[in-house]
């Protein structure tokens, strides 16, 4: 891995457009990520997260636009060992042992992470002699992480990396990631878990319908959604509540997004609705993303 000028962005995406047949997966996306950033890509299924990651890795040919990874084309960057990736649909070969797979991938890099240290960091030291087919979901994920880290790449791309992990595994995973980020590794990850984005990322990029709908710190994205959420347990509500922008019902619990808490509550009391289990909160990152992505999709 040759030394890189610090002003070269880790990722430079301009006008990226990806089509899968008739489906427009990524729509004229511009995104620039500097070296050393930790960035979460958020968005619902079909938002274009995986397609973006695939384009950055050179796994698909974009319909339009350009992607530069540390100043190189995606395939050159991968060949040069600049990138490590955990793919959503990446896999391990059958009829092989974990240690053999790790050895194969390590030996493809010029300056690989020493096996013992790599195995300890990723928590696979007990698994090296085990057949790949005998791994649990969480263990497979850890092995895939070890493969992504095998070459000590300056850029890590993680597509839903913790989807098969339990809570403990997830916590250990993000501790590892924070350690790598602290040492200057650029970490870009796509996730559904908003608390992960909140806790780990210093920048959150929200995608919807293949377009960028928000970009900033978790706090900035959250504050993009003004208003609060009023939750209560109620069977029936009056139809026209002042201030309310959306109503979502989960069983007996109703969540009212409102721009005017006071007016909403007053109207509820006036209508004689008992305020059972009342709860008023500012928008969570989840609300923010939901609000951003639904408005983005209807654009």
């Amino acid at each position, binding site marked *: 891995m040759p030394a890189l000028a610090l002003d070269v962005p880790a990722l430079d995406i301009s006008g990226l457009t990806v089509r*899968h047949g008739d*489906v427009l997966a990524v729509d004229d996306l511009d995104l620039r990520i500097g070296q050393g950033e930790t960035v979460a890509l958020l968005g619902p*299924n*079909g*938002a*274009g*997260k*995986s*397609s973006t990651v*695939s384009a950055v*890795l*050179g*796994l*698909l040919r974009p319909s339009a636009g350009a992607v530069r990874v540390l100043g190189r084309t995606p395939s050159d960057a*991968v*060949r*040069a*060992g600049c*990138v*490590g*990736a955990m*793919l*959503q*649909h*990446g*896999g*391990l*070969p*059958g*009829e*092989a042992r974990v240690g*053999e*797979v790790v*050895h*194969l*991938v390590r*030996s*493809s*890099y010029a300056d690989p992470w020493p096996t013992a240290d790599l195995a300890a960091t990723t928590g696979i030291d007990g698994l090296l002699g085990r057949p790949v087919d005998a791994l649990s979901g969480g263990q497979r994920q850890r092995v*895939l992480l070890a*493969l992504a880290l*095998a*070459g000590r790449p300056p850029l890590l791309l993680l*597509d839903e990396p913790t989807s098969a992990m339990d809570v403990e595994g997830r916590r250990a995973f993000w501790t590892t990631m924070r350690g790598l980020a602290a040492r200057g590794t650029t970490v870009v990850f*796509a996730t559904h878990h908003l608390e992960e984005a909140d806790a780990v990322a210093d920048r959150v990029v929200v995608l919807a319908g293949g377009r960028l709908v928000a970009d900033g710190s978790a706090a900035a994205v959250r504050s993009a959604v003004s208003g609060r959420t009023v939750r209560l347990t109620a069977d029936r509500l009056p139809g026209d509540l002042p201030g309310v922008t959306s109503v979502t019902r989960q069983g007996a619990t109703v969540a009212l997004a409102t721009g005017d808490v006071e007016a909403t509550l007053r109207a509820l009391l006036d209508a004689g609705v008992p305020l059972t289990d009342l709860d008023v909160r500012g928008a969570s990152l989840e609300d923010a993303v939901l609000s951003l992505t639904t408005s983005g999709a209807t654009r």
Partner: protein
Amino acid sequence: MSTLLAFQLRRLGRNRQFLFFTVLMPAAFSVFFTKVFAGAPGGISQEQAAATMVSMMAYGALGAALGATVRLSFDRASGWLRQLRVTPVPQTSVVAVDVAVGMLLTLPPLLVVAAVGRFVNGVRLEAGQWVGLVTVLWLASAVFVALGLLLGWALEEKAAGGAIGIVGTVLALLGGLWVPVELFPSGLRVVAHALPSYWYAEAGREAAAGSGPELLPLLVLAGFAALFAALTVVVARRRPLTAVAG
């Protein structure tokens, strides 16, 4: 690249069933067919024993080449090929190793069946004929390596295993590897001449007869190999390794 080759060979070596069906079965068939014909009135001639051996060498090599290469579809299904694409391992090495593994795997059945022919069934050839026979059948097995790679790219994991069995059987049966083409009705003989397996065995028979390599079978085989390779490239290009959703 050598690391990847060793890795792939080790994986195949773990598959005892594969080794059994590709190496031992053709050898057992060779003994079986020879003994069956030997029990017929008039016994079996040197030529018949040699012809049976060549057919079984061809059958074994064909099965090994197809079986070793179609495994590509398993690696596609598991996502391993995608994973490999995001490491610095070059794509050209991955393809070259697939071809090399297919070619290497055809050698054991060729050698084992030849040894059974020589030492169990008493086939006698000149040293040069043995070398020529094994060399011709080994190099020409590239046709079936290309066909196996084509099927591995074209078929889904679940279909691939069954398809290889059927394709292998059709090629062996209609190509005259189990029953000599001379015993076919004339209609089927036309079919045989349209199959690479017939020309493959034909090239082997000519090499065993010591008549030097005849041009026609080799040209036909080269044509088939080029066709399969070209189709493989077309199919592989059309198959993205990416997920469609997300």
